[in-house]
């Protein structure tokens, strides 16, 4: 076994990697979330609460007063996860009516994060309220009015459907393509195809086109299920979603072709696809673990995972109902990756055996 | 616990041994004996049931019906005893490619419970016998195929088993090495080890004391090569085999 370097690497390298990644990087805990405080009151109470929230390590506070429309677009662009709105005369209400209201608006396209954030902020406000009540005899009540944007019922399906789409497409396209091409190498049929008038490019196309269609069928069935069974509407353009899915599928297929060219056995292709592709997809796409909370190096790494971009795109189209104008940047990145991978894999496809 | 047969001159004794997979009878009531120290050739066309029969005899697969005793042990009840008293080598499985020659010898010797002292003398003896002193510390993967096969055989008989099963041991090996390999077989047989061998080389069939030819799961012929040639009025074993296997119905699964 000493001579089997690969096994050694997997055996000892994997646990170290996993512990480090899961221990430090991948937590469901929400830290440094960008939130917006819109303080229309600007009085003692509102500023004290804001100060407390700013002091918390969970939040990264931006203080501006925006109108309702601007707040909404800040959410759409994904700039903020939560908005805290103090109405005018907040302190006055509190002192004279013993009762005041704060509005909390959360981006519920990721229900977990939304829940956590509202709970954190509510408890800070609660704390403040309890502090007041030790000094003043009639109890003050600060009511928090919570609004869950995009996903009022906090359905988990909202975030997992786009995630599953990314995962399934990755799995089908990368692993299946890689394995099916490598299998031809193993059975010797690749040798025959090479020694035939068939052009290498045609071999690749004929191996990948079926998977492109299969994957599109997968997309359709996932969407049908989510619309009719999970009652989750697609808020944005279905056509755009398809176009983006196709783009992602092509990126994945190119990746699959590349893996198949580099691996000699089905087993190797499988290992690379699983370890090198599926794991990063789960960890870095933002579907299981929020990317925002990872240490900076991992956040940078997450940028090279195609699934991350597709997840953002799919989620934005399905839940937030955004169009291409809001998503052109992500689309461009994904397209760039696709073209890059396609070129590399076509370049490295050999017309000979070695 | 060793069950003594009436005649312990026999290394292998089977009676109507059969193996069925659902509707398909892979091995159909084969009955034969192999004497101690005999070189027994086990021939048959592709898919005749050789591999299945061999697996049963090695204690790797339980028969559907019939009786068999290997080295005096019952194939149903004492498979572990059987495994301890046989050696096995095939073209596909031979040695650990990423261990050295010496390490392989020590490893396989260790499995069969040889002591350190025994291992030391045995491995020296074996390396001298094969004339591979220079290569003893080299990885097996760097050896030519013929050497690997010879080494692999020597390792299979390292623990002096009563029987050694050889599954196409010489496939693809050059003619000189092939004969050196058979010399090893003869030497082992001289020491009293029973040899049970399958091959596609018909000239090798001639080197066996007796051979059986399986067709469609049954043993169609079993005798010395000379007697078989006489019976089928054939000039070579090739011809005998051709006459018997030509009528085969069954194809490999």
């Amino acid at each position, binding site marked *: 076994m000493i001579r089997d370097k690969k096994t050694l690497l997997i055996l000892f390298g994997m646990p170290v990697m996993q512990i480090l990644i899961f221990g430090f990087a991948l937590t469901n805990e929400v830290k440094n979330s960008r939130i917006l405080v819109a303080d229309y009151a600007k009085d003692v109470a509102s500023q004290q609460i804001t100060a407390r929230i700013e002091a918390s390590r969970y939040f990264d506070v931006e203080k501006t007063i925006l109108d309702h429309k601007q707040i909404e677009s800040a959410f759409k662009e994904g700039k903020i996860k939560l908005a805290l709105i103090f109405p005018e005369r907040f302190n006055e209400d509190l002192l004279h009516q013993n009762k005041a209201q704060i509005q909390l608006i959360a981006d519920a396209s990721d229900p977990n994060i939304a829940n956590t954030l509202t709970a954190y902020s509510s408890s800070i406000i609660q704390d403040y309220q309890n502090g007041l009540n030790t000094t003043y005899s009639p109890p003050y009540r600060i009511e928090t009015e919570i609004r869950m944007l995009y996903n009022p019922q906090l359905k988990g399906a909202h975030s997992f459907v786009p995630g599953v789409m990314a995962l399934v497409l990755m799995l089908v396209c990368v692993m299946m393509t890689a394995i099916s091409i490598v299998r031809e190498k193993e059975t010797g049929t690749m040798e025959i195809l*090479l020694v035939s008038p*068939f052009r290498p490019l045609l071999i690749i196309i004929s191996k990948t086109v079926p998977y492109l269609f299969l994957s599109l069928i997968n997309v359709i069935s996932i969407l049908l299920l989510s619309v009719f069974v999970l009652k989750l509407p697609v808020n944005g353009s279905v056509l755009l979603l398809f176009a983006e899915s196709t783009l992602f599928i092509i990126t994945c297929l190119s990746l699959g072709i590349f893996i198949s060219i580099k691996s000699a056995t089905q087993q190797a292709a499988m290992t690379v696809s699983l370890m090198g592709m599926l794991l990063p997809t789960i960890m870095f796409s933002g579907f299981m673990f929020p990317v925002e909370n990872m240490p900076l190096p991992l956040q940078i790494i997450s940028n090279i995972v195609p699934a991350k971009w597709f997840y953002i795109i799919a989620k934005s189209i399905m839940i937030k109902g955004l169009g291409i104008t809001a998503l052109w940047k992500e689309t461009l990145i994904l397209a760039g990756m696709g073209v890059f991978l396609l070129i590399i894999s076509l370049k490295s496809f050999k017309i000979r055996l070695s | 616990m060793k069950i003594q047969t009436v005649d312990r001159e026999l290394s292998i004794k089977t009676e109507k041994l059969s193996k069925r997979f659902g509707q398909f009878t892979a091995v159909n009531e084969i009955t034969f004996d192999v004497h101690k120290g005999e070189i027994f050739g086990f021939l048959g*066309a592709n898919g005749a049931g050789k591999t299945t029969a061999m697996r049963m005899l090695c204690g790797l697969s339980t028969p559907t019906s019939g009786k068999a005793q290997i080295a005096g042990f019952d194939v149903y009840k004492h498979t572990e005893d059987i495994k301890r008293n046989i050696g096995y080598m095939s073209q596909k499985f031979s040695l650990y490619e990423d261990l050295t020659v010496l390490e392989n010898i020590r490893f396989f010797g260790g499995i069969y419970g040889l002591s350190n002292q025994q291992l030391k003398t045995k491995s020296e003896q074996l390396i001298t016998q094969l004339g591979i002193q220079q290569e003893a510390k080299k990885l097996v993967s760097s050896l*030519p*195929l013929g050497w690997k096969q010879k080494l692999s055989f020597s390792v299979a008989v390292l623990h002096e088993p009563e029987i050694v099963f050889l599954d196409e041991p010489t*496939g*693809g*090996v*050059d003619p000189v090495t092939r004969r050196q390999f058979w010399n090893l077989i003869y030497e082992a047989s001289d020491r009293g080890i029973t040899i049970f061998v399958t091959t596609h080389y018909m000239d090798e069939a001639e*080197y066996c004391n007796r051979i059986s030819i399986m067709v469609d799961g049954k043993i169609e012929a079993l005798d010395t090569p000379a007697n078989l040639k006489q019976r089928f009025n054939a000039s070579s074993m090739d011809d005998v085999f051709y006459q018997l296997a030509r009528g085969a119905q069954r194809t490999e699964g």
Partner: protein
Amino acid sequence: MDAVIVDSITKTYGKEKTHAVNGVSFSVKKGELFGLIGPDGAGKTSIFRVLTTLLLPDSGRASVDGFDIVKDFRKIRDRVGYMPGKFSLYQDLTVEENLSFFATVFGTTIKENYNLIKDIYIQIEPFKDRRAGKLSGGMKQKLALCCALIHKPSVLFLDEPTTGVDPVSRKEFWEMLRRLREQEITIIVSTPYMDEATRCDRIALIQNGNFLSADTPESIIHSYPDMLYAVKAENIYTLIQSLKNFENALSCHAFGEYVHLSVKPALLKGTTTPAEDHKNTEDIKNYLSMAGFKDIVVKKTEPTIEDCFIKLLS
């Protein structure tokens, strides 16, 4: 012009530059059945891969059907048929589907060249709806041969088509090749079985990447320099041990039921007189009966390709 011309091809592998093919040259005439005979690891597959344009040689030149294997590799791919050693067809496709798949790949139809494969295909036609994975070794080979032939190649490369196949199927396979030869298709075939050598028009004996000899099987046999005797007695093993010490013995090897003993020729090669033969035979007999052997048979025998191979190796 010759169908295949190979001029000092060398191919090495790995960091240590192990020679798989070491400066090999030969040529194959149009319509010839040429055999590469040698054990595993001799370099047969590498030669095939170089000629089918799958591998680039380190040095040397070769042409197939007049086209250079490096420059004109596409033209070669258009016109040759190739059956790799580990080739196992598409296991999940039926016999017929496999065949029509390869026909499509080569831009033809089963109908167009049915004549060529008819003889062979008829034998597997009853199983045409069976999946290739469920066929026997012999039938798989016939199907593979059909697939390699479907586009009427001018040169057919068959890498170890009979390895691991039982003697009956092997015999049938060679008979098919002989019939194909009549169709003017040049065939290069490799095999580790020496007894198949005589079925080729010309052969090359190959070991460790080098050609030991390349000629017709008859000439190779004819150029065997020593006198060869077939000896039989009770126990082959002790017989071999004993014959090794015979005074004129060059080498002795088991050959089926006999032991082949080669003896130094007294005169020039190939010119043994019956008297000389008689003397040698008697000498061997006497020597063996002195050593206590019974049922001794000694006779002069013709060498086989295997004898020649062994001689060339020593």
